[in-house]
């Protein structure tokens, strides 16, 4: 009984400790990021790592999503006799919902795991200590560049996902029922406004922040050997995906309120 109670207390303690440490970590990274010198070369390396190297992945994911929504939407809409609404349905669901969230999840899987594992192995092999010893702030060099790269690249990757999804969605539709691409775009964007398009795309910068922050945090606080590295990689992906979806709940409501 006593052990159960103490373990429960320990869990709650651990839960709050984790958030506390995350807060401290975020503050240290922020302070390091806004003070010179800036690590430009490392930032570009990370932009390439997060952005261009994820590009093929999001293209594949986006294309698949486009086909899926196209098939599903055509079936549901024809049941209601609203087939003419198909382009608008596809554009709306891709741009508003599916594009951002799929990009976030795919990138959190690829980049989150990568950052978590990389930083964790640097931590357990004491490379981070070595960097610190050579008077370089590891938060600035390792964490800030990766987080910033995630923040900058996620919206661009989302745009790529959206574009691929719309293309394959139109392609899947036109195979069944020929529809010119021009007509598809005309109908699809008929009711679209900037207030629907822009916030939904650029909210993924927040996804990027979550992915980068959690992956770096999990990597840099790793303890233990190879086991710790594996755990850090797993935790990075799981927690980043989880927080990303939770954040989306708040973000959607926020966008609806701020951009009616």
């Amino acid at each position, binding site marked *: 009984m006593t052990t159960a109670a103490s373990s429960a207390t320990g869990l709650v303690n651990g839960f709050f400790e984790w958030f506390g440490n995350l807060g401290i970590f975020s503050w240290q990274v922020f302070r390091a990021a806004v003070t010179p010198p800036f690590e430009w070369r490392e930032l*570009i*390396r990370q*932009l*390439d790592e997060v*952005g*261009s190297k994820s*590009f093929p992945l999001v293209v594949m994911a986006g294309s698949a999503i486009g086909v899926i929504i196209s098939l599903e939407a055509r079936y549901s809409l024809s049941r209601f006799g609203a087939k003419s609404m198909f382009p608008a349905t596809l554009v709306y669901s891709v741009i508003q919902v599916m594009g951002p969230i799929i990009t976030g999840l795919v990138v959190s899987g690829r980049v989150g795991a990568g950052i978590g594992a990389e930083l964790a192995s640097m931590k357990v092999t004491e490379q981070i200590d070595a960097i610190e010893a050579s008077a370089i702030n590891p938060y600035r060099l390792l964490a800030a560049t990766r987080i910033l790269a995630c923040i900058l690249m996620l919206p*661009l*990757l989302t*745009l*790529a996902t*959206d*574009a691929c999804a719309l293309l394959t969605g139109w392609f899947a539709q036109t195979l069944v029922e020929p529809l010119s691409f021009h007509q598809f*775009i005309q109908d699809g*964007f*008929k*009711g*679209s*406004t*900037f*207030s629907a*398009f822009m916030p939904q*795309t650029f909210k993924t910068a927040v996804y990027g922040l979550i992915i980068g922050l959690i992956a770096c945090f999990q990597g840099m606080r790793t303890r233990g050997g190879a086991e710790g590295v594996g755990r850090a990689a797993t935790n990075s992906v799981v927690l980043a995906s989880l927080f990303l979806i939770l954040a989306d709940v708040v973000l959607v409501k926020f966008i609806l309120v701020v951009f009616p």
Partner: protein
Amino acid sequence: MSRVARLGAFIVVTLAVLAAGVFIIGGKEYLFRSTYQLKAQFDNVGGLASGADVQVGGVHSGTVHSIDLPRKPGDKVTVVMDLDKSTHEIVKQDSVASIETEGLLGNQYLAISFGTAGQADVKNGDTIQSLPPLQMGELLKKAGVILDGAQEAIQNVTQAAGNLKSVTGKVDSGQGTVGALVNDKQIYSNLDQSMTTLHATMLQAQVAVTDFQENMEALKHNILLSAFFKKRGYEDSSGLTANSIGGLPQAAPVKSFTYTAKQLFDGRDSAKLKDQKSLNAGGEFLAQNQFGYAVVVVSAGMEGDTQKDLVLTEARAMVIREYLVENFAFDDSQLKTLGMGKQAGANLDADWGSIQILVFPAGTEIPPNKPAPAVGSSTTDSSKPAQATAASTQKP
């Protein structure tokens, strides 16, 4: 490919996608074209949202910029729209904005009608007229009322058809008079026979009436009865109004002769002439002069029974006319009579009434003859036996 080049390519591609998106949506929102603003006010915009299409003549030509609620109750909702400059030539001050729906359940958009040529141009920020939107709910309510009415009408028609069916059923089965007529040939032949008999009877009746008239004429000249007619002054009361007119004409007479009844007639209630000679002046005038027509106007005093006095004045007029026609040479169709009946007048009672002979100049229109009193027509009489026959045969 170097790392930087790869990154650059990625950024360029994705930014191109962004630019494409911006231009597609921006084109819909008219952000990159020169526009002008118009306003329209509605009591109810029926769910129109900002960003909705604005169509001019069915062509997408702008977007709804904003929809503002009124500041105080009683004001209207203001819809502000951005319109493409190209519509400036066709949208005029008398253009009307209305909120329409694409199909039954589609998007809502704002439609603007063309203005008429010669009307003033609209300026940026002008408010144009508006039509209230057609709302599905109201439409359905109206349709409901109409359907209710139609249902009631159909019920009435059904009821009427039922009644008609029952009536025709009864006729068909020989119930009632019509049924008997339609179904029983016996009745028809009886009716036919009755009509033939009736016709023969009528012919006989006509002969009998002629005989009776002759008998009456003979009777009048019988010594025993002739005193009555002599005293009365005339024999045939059926010809009293033969030359009577309905009323005096508007024109003024050229000549008039006035007498009192006391001077001319035998008694207060008699039409027998006593002093014919005094009429000669009038008779000679008629014989010697050209005239349009003349009227013998007779009226009685206020004493006595109204109906009797009317007959008396008519009779006196006729008697005078007969005297003049028989004793002087002129066209007798130009001399008319007019019995006025009782008339109020200062000396009428004392003089037993007055007589005037009014002579009207040539060209005066002769007033229409007084309509003959209606006599019961022979058809109504003849229908009675027919009905009686039908009624008597109806009972088996």
